[in-house]
Each structure stands twice: as structure tokens, then as C-alpha cells.
């Protein structure tokens, strides 16, 4: 197997294993739109990375974390729903990002690579970012699991029972920011949310417990990465979209399985 394929596989599988459990919480908490909003802002992060000659991961991470914190701060204001605030922040950040990119005349910015990923060009440094970020997120998830689950079921009940709901929620938002930042090379920021929610959706009907669903989502994501990479090489199609298409295909294939229970 060629080195670049091996690197792509290692990066993709690493990402899928983190996206599985985190994506389940995105689905349970109905936060797909939050993920998309952060991802829109990522383009500003790419531009900032180029402008300040930083790692692009650092730039994207900075913008995503800032957006998550801004959302939490703005939510304290009454009168607007978080849905509206998300749209405002996301498209604002996207607009500023596109303006910032236009200043980068001297650098040829291949926006497509960041929007849709370039998994076949993954370097060892990318893999280090993915695994470091992924390990951090998985460790936090394991640590916060019961509290995060309790807060997902009912925030007030969890609060009365002593779960630090606001802190847990903030950490959860930051985890999403990290995962979006490290997804850049794999499927790109425009498609990252699909790898959070589609494997989780596929896993749902085969799961009786939250932990089962988290594990199965990782498996579904890993399968999609493998299938997508294979299709990309075999049919010479772009790898990022091929992975997402494979995940979507798996979801629809999983639908008419007789004898499985829809609910836990």
C-alpha cells in the first residue's frame, strides 16, 4: 500500500473514532446546526492562519473556540434564540473570512482543499494534530460522560443533582470546536458535520444504550472512511465527498433491516 494511502487511512480512522461518540451527543442534543455554524467560521481561521503565518489548525481552532464562547456569552442576552445567534455568528465569520482571504493575493489559497478536505495529501504533522486533538476530546468525553448524558436528558434535573451543567456544556462546545478544526484535511469544514451526525444516525437503530450507539457510530464512520478511500482510488473521485457519500449510503442501507428494534 502506498504511503499516502496509509496516511489517509490512519488519519481518517482516527477522526472517525472521535467523531462517533461526539457525533452522538450532537444528535441527542440537536446541535447539528451549531456544528455547521462553527465550520462556516473555519474559513476565517484559515485566512488568519495564513496572515499571521501560524499553523492553519491553530487559526481554525482559535476562530471556532471564539465563536463557541461568543455564542455562550450572547445566549445570556434575552430576546434572540440561539438559532438566530448562530446564523449571525456563522455567516458573519464566513463573510469576514472571505474578505480576509481576498487580502492574501501573494499566497495562492486553495480554498477547495479546506472546504472539502484533501485527505490524500495528509502529512505526518496533520496526523499528529488529529490524534492529539482526538485524544484530548475522547479523554474529556470519558471524564464527563455521566454528567454530559445527564445534562442531555434534562439540564434542570442534572443541575439539581449537582452536575455543573454550564461548565459541562461549555466543554462540550469546545470539543466540537476541536473536532471541526482537526477535520479540515479529512473531509473539509463544509462536510465535517456530516461525519458527526450520519454515523450516529446509522448506529441508532442497532443500539440499546448510549455507549453502544457511540461505539457503533465510530464503526460506521470507520467503514465510511475505508469505503470512501477505496472508491476515491478506484474511480478517481474526490476523497472527502466520497467518504461522506459512503456514510450516507451506509445509512440508507441500514434502514430496511427487518427484526431490529427502532428503540432501545
Amino acid at each position: 500500500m502506498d504511503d499516502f494511502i496509509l496516511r489517509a487511512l490512519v488519519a481518517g480512522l482516527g477522526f472517525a473514532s472521535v467523531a462517533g461518540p461526539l457525533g452522538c451527543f450532537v444528535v441527542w442534543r440537536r446541535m447539528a446546526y451549531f456544528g455547521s455554524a462553527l465550520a462556516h467560521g473555519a474559513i476565517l481561521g484559515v485566512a488568519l492562519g495564513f496572515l499571521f503565518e501560524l499553523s492553519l489548525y491553530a487559526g481554525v481552532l482559535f476562530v471556532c473556540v471564539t465563536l463557541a464562547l461568543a455564542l455562550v456569552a450572547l445566549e445570556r442576552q434575552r430576546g434572540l434564540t440561539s438559532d438566530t445567534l448562530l446564523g449571525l455568528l456563522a455567516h458573519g465569520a464566513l463573510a469576514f473570512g472571505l474578505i480576509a482571504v481576498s487580502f492574501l493575493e501573494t499566497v495562492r489559497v486553495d480554498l477547495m482543499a479546506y472546504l472539502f478536505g484533501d485527505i490524500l495529501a495528509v502529512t505526518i504533522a496533520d496526523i499528529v494534530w488529529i490524534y492529539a486533538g482526538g485524544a484530548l476530546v475522547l479523554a474529556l468525553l470519558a471524564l464527563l460522560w455521566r454528567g454530559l448524558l445527564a445534562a442531555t436528558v434534562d439540564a434542570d434535573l442534572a443541575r439539581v443533582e449537582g452536575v455543573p451543567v454550564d461548565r459541562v456544556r461549555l466543554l462540550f462546545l469546545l470539543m466540537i470546536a476541536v473536532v471541526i478544526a482537526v477535520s479540515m484535511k479529512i473531509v473539509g469544514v463544509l462536510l465535517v458535520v456530516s461525519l458527526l451526525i450520519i454515523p450516529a444516525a446509522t448506529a441508532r437503530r442497532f443500539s440499546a444504550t448510549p455507549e453502544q450507539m457511540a461505539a457503533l457510530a465510530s464503526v460506521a464512520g470507520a467503514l465510511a472512511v475505508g469505503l470512501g478511500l477505496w472508491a476515491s482510488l478506484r474511480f478517481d473521485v474526490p476523497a472527502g465527498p466520497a467518504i461522506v457519500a459512503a456514510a450516507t449510503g451506509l445509512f440508507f442501507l441500514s434502514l430496511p433491516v427487518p427484526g431490529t428494534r427502532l428503540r432501545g
Partner: protein
Amino acid sequence: MQPERRAGELLVDAQNLSIRYADHVALDRVDLAVHAGEIVTVIGPNGAGKTSLIRAVLGLIAPSTGAIRRRPGLKVGYVPQGLHIDDSLPLTIRRFLGLAAPEATRRVGEALAEVGAERVVDSPVQAISGGEMKRVLLARALLRDPDLLALDEPTSGVDVTGQAELYRLIQTIRDRRGCGVLLVSHNLHVVMAATDQVLCLNRHVCCRGQPEAVSRHPEYLALFGPHLATTLAVYTHEHDHRHGPSGEPIVLGGPGKGEDRGHSHG
């Protein structure tokens, strides 16, 4: 397993509690105290501030003015009105109850038995009925071995027979555990039989006292109308009894003999 609870001990004491939002006053200078072994029922029409009151007592919202003192180390069991759990979350009742506390999973069977809902232990949370959910929520509160049980509309969406059963269950729990009970209800004319004190709320406290006294209070009658109000007295007949060793009611006297209460928690 039960820790010693001093009967009659003050659990929660809210004084001069006001909650103001930008455009309206939800609660206006309300005093409320709950003692161990005591059942306090808060009734009032929609928008009377009942939910604000219980949320403030639980520490979920901060009062605008006034103070809430909780006994140090007070453990509160909260029974919310209902839960909406997204269909996408696969969760059995066992796991749901296990979320109550780190070591709760081992005692799930025990708690479900106490509320008479053992059957649903392996059901998905989304698949049980409203009445079963009320019992499950009660079990979750009991898993914390609470000093104070706070119940928000425990009988909403439950049929009349189910309501009576739930009230009896809450009373049994109080008798067995000696915890204090704070119960909020929009049901104006059905007050739990064993209620020690009724607080009739309409942003401010209209009147308070033992159920019969409240049902005759002019402000109560003005708020709910004499027609609705009369039914309160019907249910308080059951108040005139006390409980024998195994919890069976012992009738003390006929309806309307107000003063001699069976329950004394002093």
C-alpha cells in the same frame, strides 16, 4: 441506610422572596418554609409564579430580592413536571435512573419497587406512559435519598385514579422517610389529603394555612370562585385520619372537624 432526620427540622426557609423579570413580576414578597416530615402544597392559577417559586427553592434561578436558606448539606430530590427525551437517545429506565448519582445504578430496583414501577425497568424512556414516567421521576428523586422532595405538578396528565394513587404514594414516602415535601399544583380544587400546609399563590401569597382554613378564606374564594372552591373541602376530608404502624389510614372524625389534626410533626 436512612440517615437520622430530626422531625420538624427546618429544611428550607425562603423569606421575602421576589422574582422580577424585565417586563413583569413573577413573585412578590413570598415567605415559604418547609420542615422535615411536612407536606407543603402550593396552589395557584397559571402564571401565579408557582414554577418560579419551586425553581428558586431548587436554586435554579436566583431571586431578585429576599433570601433562601437551605439547611447545610440539604439533599433535594426534584420531580420535574415531565421530560422530553429525544427519540435519538437509546436509554432504558435503568440507565435513566442510574444517572441520578454515581452509585445509583445498584439501587435502581429498590427505588422502582418503592414507587411500584418495577415493570418498566428495561423499557426505553420514550416508551412508557405519562403516569409511569411520574413514578420513574419520583424513583430518580428517591435515589438521592432526599431530605426534601420538590414536586412540580406531580399529577398533571394523570387520570383521577392515578392522581389519588400518586398522592398516596407521596404520603407513604413522607411517612416512611420523614422527608419534607414541597408540592406545586395548578389543580385548584384537589389538594393532597395529607397536606399540612396549603399556600395559595397568585404572585403574592393570597392565603395560607391548613387545607380547610384555606378553602374558606375569602381571597381563595375570590380567586377561584365559590363553585370551584367548594371541591377543595371534599378532598380534605381524608385529612382527618392518621396512619397506623403499617400505613393504613385511621379515621379520626367526620369532615369539617378542623382543629384536631392526625398528623403532628412538632
